[in-house]
């Protein structure tokens, strides 16, 4: 049974210390399924200045369709943050994805600094790309 948002939040809330929280986050990223090498290309590269980030959204057939996300980064923290996104978003419908209050969730688990709309922040671009994909699928 894969972890859901509630379980993730309670896990992250266990840590009083940021060191432990990041240790957990990095471990989450390390457990991600391997990113397929054939999608490590410009088409799947997300704009980010310092770290490299890849994202591949997959639309699963169904009514309504559900979305699945594969992602990777050379930054272990960004990879861990993507693992959080995957728990929140993967297997969900575009409506469900767009309804998630990500800022609120990140604030509750003490990771809000990563959502700053900074041009250097590859992770923020990743979030925008996921939302954009959900919107496109919803409207198609």
């Amino acid at each position, binding site marked *: 049974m894969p972890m859901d948002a509630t379980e993730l939040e309670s896990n992250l809330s266990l840590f009083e210390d*940021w*060191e432990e929280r*990041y240790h957990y986050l*990095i471990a989450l990223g390390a457990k991600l399924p391997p990113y397929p090498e054939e999608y490590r290309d410009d088409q799947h590269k997300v704009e980010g200045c*310092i*770290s490299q980030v890849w994202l591949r959204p997959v639309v699963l057939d169904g009514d309504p369709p559900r979305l699945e996300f594969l992602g990777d980064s050379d*930054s*272990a*923290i960004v990879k861990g943050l993507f693992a959080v996104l995957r728990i929140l978003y993967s297997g969900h419908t575009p409506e469900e994805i767009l309804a998630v209050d990500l800022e609120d969730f990140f604030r509750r688990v003490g990771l809000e600094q990563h959502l700053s709309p900074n041009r*250097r922040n590859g992770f923020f671009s990743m979030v925008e790309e996921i939302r954009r994909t959900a919107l496109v699928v919803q409207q198609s």
Partner: protein
Amino acid sequence: MSEVRQARTSAPALWTGARLEEVRSQFPLLSASESDGRLVYFDSASTSQRPRCVLDAMEDYYTRANANVHRGLYGLAVDATRLYEGARKKIASLLRAPRVEEVVFVRGVTEAVNLVAQSYLRPRVGPGDEILITLLEHHSNFVPWQIVAEQTGATLRVAAITDQGDLDLEDFRSKLSSRTRLVSVTATSNAIGTVVPLAEVIEDAHAAGATVFVDGAQSAAHGDLDPVGLGADFYAISGHKMYGPTGIGVVWGRFDLLSEMPPYQGGGDMIREVRLDGVDFAAPPQLFEAGTPNIAGAVGLGRAVEFLEELGPQALVAHEKALLEVLVRDLESFEGVRIVGSPTHRASVLSFVMEGVHAQDVATLLDHEGICIRVGHHCAQPLLHRLGETATLRVSVAAFNGSDDVDRLLQGLERVQRIFR
């Protein structure tokens, strides 16, 4: 570690104890006590912090003397003009400019390079002419020349660096010729701290008949390099990297060169007379200061120049040099850390990477410890590419940094390693 600490206490140049506290206490942003989470600010190469006296000078201007300059005849306007021109004099004295009129206020080095590229160089070059820069340059001393090269058909050439990160003088000389119209070089690399041998570069460039622009962004607050005395033709500094405000800087230029240059922008305060059929321009520096200038910024920068003098330029350089030596030694002996570049002479800046941990992750985690260091390519992508890196961590030191900051950095790095273990 004990060996290192012993070396620290025996380095008399390094500010410690009461002297360090005295300097640090002048910076409101850094004045929190250790227990209240004093920030370790190691990013002065990007922008330094401001001492109280600079903030006071700007507030004093706004509360006591705010009016436009060079225009009104009332007392307030006279005061404002006096403060603004007084700042110009202080900066002229810092740069040892032969004439105060050679000091032009701009937004910073970026605008200075663009001004010289467009007003000085553009009318003077065409196909077959060459502009020579070095691989050590910040993008702001790179891109404006690329633009002029594209506009005019001139060729931009780039002098190589050695594996250690020094300017390769042999390569520099081989690229210098009678076709070289201008050489633009930084005094100190913002990414790896290399100090460029300015005297040799200027002498060789002049021997080839080229004009020389020196980018002083990283050097102005870190010692007396005296590019003007060494014969540079243009020299630019940014206020915010030398304890002054953002949005203000200076380009100094030889008066005969400034006098031959067309204006960079048109507007108020740069004209002598405007008629329906034409315009007579004012003389430099007014010619290059169209519109209402950043008066409070200039006043703040003038005060920052005095602040540097009060610190004692020689004592400051010696302190920073000693602190850099501590940093180099401690990081060299830190397992898993690799310093990027080992230039013969280094000033104020040091880049490093941590094996097995992305630089971005290191910086993110250090931020939680209240340690501000820069991560990325430092706007010097060609240089980092040459050194085989895409992103490094950069520590830059200033008057308010002490060996206690280095200790906290090392503790932070140990914590990073624990997290990744």
